[in-house]
């Protein structure tokens, strides 16, 4: 890959990402819906489980990631579906931009949107469940970013994979959630630990490594296989 080639890869990636972000910020539909959904889930759970109980500290990490992954699905669902509207996907694929740039651009946009929704939900969560993140703010932010990138990569890839299927809305969750389990498991454990004051240390670095490994492997796999998925 020559220098200009890297340059055009990057500029295509940025063009796609900023397009997605711009059209989302213009309507804010997915953001609002996803945030509203996450509040609804929090409310539902507050009925399902007694939020004032002692046990809450031990489940809050888990709860948080359930909320993130469900609310995030709304955003990821739309990622490639957005391109279907007027057959925009065809125009993107027939352009000289590499499909890898297409994927990365969309993944970056999704990541930003997801992080926004997650931060907002985190605020609501802290209010509802009276949690505090102060002590371990930075490591928690790191874990959230890593976990979110995992959700984003898998979600974006499978959004592309299912975009032409009759049963898109059903196939996406059925395929994505089982695949996400290692990342979610790791993120849940780390978040719970951090929220209960345990720093990342010898007991749980393994989880951090799982999370990083997951992100790394699937980012590579996705960029490699996106062309097969989109073009054939």
């Amino acid at each position, binding site marked *: 890959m020559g220098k200009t080639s890297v340059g055009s890869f990057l500029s295509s990636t940025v063009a796609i990402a900023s397009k997605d972000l711009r059209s989302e910020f213009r309507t804010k539909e997915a953001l609002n819906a996803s945030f509203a959904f996450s509040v609804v889930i929090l409310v539902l759970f507050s009925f399902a489980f007694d939020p004032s109980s002692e046990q809450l500290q031990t489940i809050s990490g888990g709860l948080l990631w359930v909320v993130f992954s469900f609310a995030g699905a709304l955003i990821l669902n739309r990622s490639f579906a957005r391109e279907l509207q007027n057959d925009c996907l065809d125009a993107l694929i027939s352009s000289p931009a590499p499909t890898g740039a297409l994927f990365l651009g969309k993944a970056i946009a999704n990541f930003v949107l997801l992080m926004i929704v997650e931060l907002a939900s985190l605020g609501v969560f802290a209010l509802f469940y009276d949690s505090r993140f102060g002590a371990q703010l930075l490591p928690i932010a790191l874990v959230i970013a890593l976990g979110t990138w995992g959700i984003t990569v*898998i979600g974006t*890839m499978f959004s592309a*994979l299912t975009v*032409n*299927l*009759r*049963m898109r809305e*059903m*196939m996406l969750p*059925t*395929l994505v959630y*089982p*695949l996400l*389990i*290692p990342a979610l*498991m*790791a993120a849940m454990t780390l978040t719970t630990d951090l929220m209960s004051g345990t720093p990342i240390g010898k007991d749980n670095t*393994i*989880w951090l490594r*799982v999370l990083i*490994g*997951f992100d790394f*492997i*699937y980012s590579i*796999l996705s960029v490699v*296989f996106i062309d*097969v*998925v989109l073009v*054939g």
Partner: protein
Amino acid sequence: MRNKLVFVLCLLAAGILCWQLYNVLLNLPNEKDQGAIYRIVYFHVPAIFTGFIGFFIALGASGMYLGTRNLKYDAFAAAVTEVSLTFATIVLATGMIWGRIIWGIWWTWDARLTTMLVCWLIYAGYLMLRRAIDEPTQRARLSAVVSIFGCTDIMIVWKSIEWWRTQHPAPVLSVRDGGGMAPGMESPIYWNWLALMCLAAVLVIIRMRQENMSREIDSLRRMAHSY
């Protein structure tokens, strides 16, 4: 030729299974802690070996499909996955029965069990995806990608639980580092494994033939209905 192969493999599987069933049920003594139920290990463990080998073969076949775009590999991958999923189901079922007797519960959220369930779900998703796509070429392409992603995921899950303490027994076979079984009690595991592999091969061959046939029928029908 193929029919003969199927026939021979069937006979082999049936022969070994009968012999080992006799051996396991009537010859071997009860285990000292678990009593009679431990015998389920002779199906539980061979089934999991067969299943996992199948998933890896399916990964290879999926890769081959993407490399060659020959639908034969796709049919092979699909057949192997389907059969392996059956064996995974057998593992779950025998494990649950075993757990019910030994632990008094059907299920516990122990790492190994959960992993197995995740594995099952991923490949069930693979098969559901296949059913959701009508066009054979698209189906082959997309499901090959899912197979590759799925297999990677299972390796990650597998790795990530190695550090967990589990309720489920640690490896006991001498080929791994366990070696906690009496030699006479261990060999039926390998024999049954061989039998199940033969059985799996038979099922895969039959399933592949069916898959090819149905694709043929599908395209003939399309041909008749198009234009």
